[in-house]
C-alpha cells in the first residue's frame, strides 16, 4: 500500500515534469487556427475577385444590349449607343504596352547587365538606390510627367498637327520609364544568382567581359530574365494612372500612337470617376473589363512563375 502510494507519487511527479509527450494546448491550437486563417485570407481575396468580378460580368453579358460575339468582333465601344466591342480598348492597351516594353526591355536589361557585370561596387551602391527611388515614385506622378513633359516634347519633335494632346505614345514611353526599374531589379537578381564558378571558368577560357556576360551569364539566367519581362508586361497592361491622365478619354480604334485612345484601365477609371449607379450597364461593364484584366495579368504571372520553376538552371 505504502509502496503503491510512493509509486503513484513518483509516477505523477514524473508525469508532471518529465512527460515527453506533447500536451494538448487549447490556446496554442486557437492561435495556430487564427494564423492559418490569416494565411488563408489571400485565397479568399482571389476567390472574392473571381466571384465578384465574374458575377457582375455575367450580369453584363446577360444584358439585352450586349452579346459576347459582338464584344469580340465589333470595333466600337460606345456604351450609350449599345456598342460594346472590346477591340478599341484592347488595341490601345496593346499599343501602350508595346511602346512601354520597347523602352523598358532593352534599357532594363542593359542597366541590369551593367550593374551586375561592369559597375564597381561603389557605382552600384549609388545607382541601385536611384533605381529604387524611380520604382517608388507613385504612378500618378508619372502621369503628370507624361502630360506635362513627354507630350509637349513629342509635339515639338513631330509637330502639333501630328501629335494630339492626349496620345498613347507619350503614355507608353513614360510607362516604359516606370517599368524599367522593375525589369532591372528582377534581371539583376537573376544575373547575380548565376554561380561565380561559371563566370570564373569563362574568364579562364579567355572570354572578354562582354562575351562572359552575354554568352555565359545571360543564358544561365535566361529563365529569370524571361520572368522579369513577363512581369513587366503584366504590369504595363494593368498600369492605370499614366494612361488615365495622358492617353486620352474616349475609346478609339486606331493604331496610330500619336492619336488619343483609351485603354482598358483608363476606361475603368473614367467611367467610375462619377458616382456610378449600381446595376447600370456602365457599372457592370467595369466588372467585365476588370475580369478581363485580372485573367490576363493572373495568367501572365502564373506563366512567369512556371518559367522560373521549369527552366531554372540548377547548379549545385
Amino acid at each position, binding site marked *: 500500500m505504502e509502496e503503491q502510494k510512493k509509486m503513484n507519487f513518483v509516477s505523477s511527479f514524473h508525469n508532471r515534469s518529465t512527460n515527453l509527450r506533447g500536451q494538448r494546448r487549447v490556446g496554442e491550437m486557437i492561435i495556430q487556427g487564427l494564423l*492559418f486563417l490569416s494565411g488563408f485570407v489571400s485565397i479568399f481575396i482571389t476567390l472574392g475577385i473571381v466571384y465578384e468580378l465574374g458575377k457582375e460580368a455575367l450580369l453584363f453579358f446577360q444584358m439585352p444590349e450586349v452579346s459576347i460575339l459582338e464584344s469580340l468582333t465589333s470595333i466600337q465601344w460606345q456604351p450609350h449607343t449599345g456598342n460594346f466591342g472590346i477591340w478599341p480598348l484592347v488595341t490601345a492597351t496593346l499599343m501602350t504596352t508595346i511602346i512601354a516594353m520597347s523602352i523598358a526591355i532593352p534599357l532594363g536589361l542593359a542597366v541590369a547587365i551593367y550593374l551586375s557585370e561592369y559597375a564597381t561596387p561603389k557605382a552600384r551602391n549609388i545607382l541601385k538606390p536611384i533605381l529604387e527611388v524611380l520604382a517608388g515614385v507613385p504612378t500618378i506622378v508619372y502621369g503628370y510627367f507624361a502630360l506635362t513633359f513627354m507630350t509637349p516634347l513629342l509635339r515639338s519633335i513631330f509637330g502639333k498637327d501630328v501629335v494630339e494632346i492626349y496620345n498613347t505614345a507619350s503614355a507608353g514611353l513614360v510607362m516604359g520609364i516606370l517599368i524599367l526599374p522593375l525589369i532591372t531589379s528582377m534581371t539583376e537578381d537573376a544575373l547575380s544568382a548565376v554561380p561565380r564558378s561559371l563566370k570564373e571558368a569563362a574568364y579562364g577560357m579567355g572570354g572578354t567581359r562582354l*562575351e562572359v556576360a552575354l554568352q555565359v551569364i545571360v543564358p544561365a539566367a535566361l529563365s529569370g530574365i524571361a520572368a522579369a519581362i513577363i512581369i513587366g508586361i503584366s504590369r504595363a497592361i494593368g498600369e492605370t494612372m499614366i494612361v*488615365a491622365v495622358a492617353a486620352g478619354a474616349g475609346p478609339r480604334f486606331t493604331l496610330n500612337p500619336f492619336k488619343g485612345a483609351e485603354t482598358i484601365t483608363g476606361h475603368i477609371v473614367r467611367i467610375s470617376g462619377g458616382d456610378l449607379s449600381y446595376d447600370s450597364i456602365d457599372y457592370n461593364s467595369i466588372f467585365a473589363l476588370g475580369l478581363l484584366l485580372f485573367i490576363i495579368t493572373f495568367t501572365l504571372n502564373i506563366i512567369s512563375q512556371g518559367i522560373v520553376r521549369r527552366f531554372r538552371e540548377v547548379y549545385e
Partner: protein
Amino acid sequence: MKEKIIHSDYNVNIKGRRRTGSIWRWILQLSTIIGIIALITLLLNIINGAFGYVALEAKVDPATLAVNGVPLEEQSKEQLIDVLRSNLSSGAFNKLEHDQPFAERSRANVYQLVIERIVKYDIKASWQLWDSLTRASEIKATVAQDYPNAQLRFISWFTTDFVSRPQSSEALTAGVRTAILGSLWTILFTVLLAFPLGVGAAIYLEEYATDNWLNRLIRTNINNLAGVPSIVYGILGLAIFVRTLEPLTSGAIFGVVDPTTANGRTVLAAGLTLGLLVLPIMIINAQEAIRAVPQSLRKASYGLGATKWQTVWSHVLPNALPGILTGTILAISRAIGETAPLVVVGASTAISFDPASPFSKFTTLPIQIYQWTSRPQDEFRSLAAAAILVLLIILLSLNASAILFRNRFSRRL
C-alpha cells in the same frame, strides 16, 4: 595552311572582340545614364511646374481697401473683418459668421476670406519656372500688352500655407490639408487591416505551414496577388466594401451615418480596399523578416522546453520586428501613392472640409493630384506639381525612416 588560318583568326579576334566589348560597354553605360536622366528630368519637371510667374487681375484693387493708409496685408484681424462687413452683403457676411464665428477664426483665415470674396483675383495666365527665369522680360511685355489691368507676380505654389489650407476651387487659395488628412485616415485603416493579417499569415507560412498542396497554393497565390493590377482591387473594393458591406462602411450599423455620405464611399471603405491591396506585399516582407531570424534562436528556445507559440512570440517576433516594421513602412508608402483603386472606390472630387470620422467622404493626396492634373488650366497643373512635391517629400521621409530602421537592425544582429 589550315593551321595558319586558325592562328590568324585567333589573333585578329582579340582586337575585334575587345572593340566589340568596349562598344557594348559604352552602350550599357549609356542606358544607365538614360535611366538617371529620366529620374532627374522627372524631378526637374515637377519643380519647374511648382513655381513661376502668374498674371493676376483683381476684381477689386487691394489698394482701394486700405484703411487710413494701412495696406490690406498689414491690417489687423478686426480691420479685416470690417472690410468684409462693408464689402459683402449682410446675408453673405452672416453666413460666414454662421459657418464659423469670426471670433474663432484666425487672422490668416479672415485675410484669405477677404482675398477670396472681395479682391477675387482672376488668373489670366501663368508660366512655369524655366520660362519665368529665361523669358522674364518677354513675359512682362506680354502681360503689359494683353492684360493691362493685371499685375505680374512670381508665385511659389509650394508653401507652408499650401500644406495647411483646405482644398478650394480657387487655384490661388487651394491647399492640400484635406487631402493629407484624408490620406492619413485611409492609411490608418489600411494598416489596421493589413498589419495583423499580414504578420499572421507570414508567421503561419514560415513557422507552422508544412509542405503540402494547400500551403503551396497559398504561397503561389500570394505571389500572384502581388501582381494583380491595383485597379482590380479597386473594383473588388467597390463590390465588397462599398456595396455589400455598405451598412458597415457608411456607419449605419453604428448609427453614426455622416449625412453627407449616404453610401459606403467612405474613408473606411478606401482604407480597407488599400489594405487588401498591400496585404500580399505585407506578407512577403514579413516572411523575409521572419526567415532572417537565425534558426539557432528557435532551437535554443525549443531546447529550453518552450512551445511553438512561446518560441514565436518571445523569440522570433521580437527579432523579426524591425524587419517587419521596415516592410510595413514600405507597404504604407505603396498605399499612400495609390490612385486608381480609390478613384474606383469613389473618392470625392471636391470636398473642402476635413475628414472627421471613418465614415466621412474622402479625398487623398494622389486623388487631388489626379484631379488638378486633369484640369486644362495651367495654374491647376502648377498646383498638381506642388502637391506632387508634398507627396514625394512624405514618401521620401517614409523610405528614409525604413532605411534607418533597416540599418539599425542589421547592426544589432
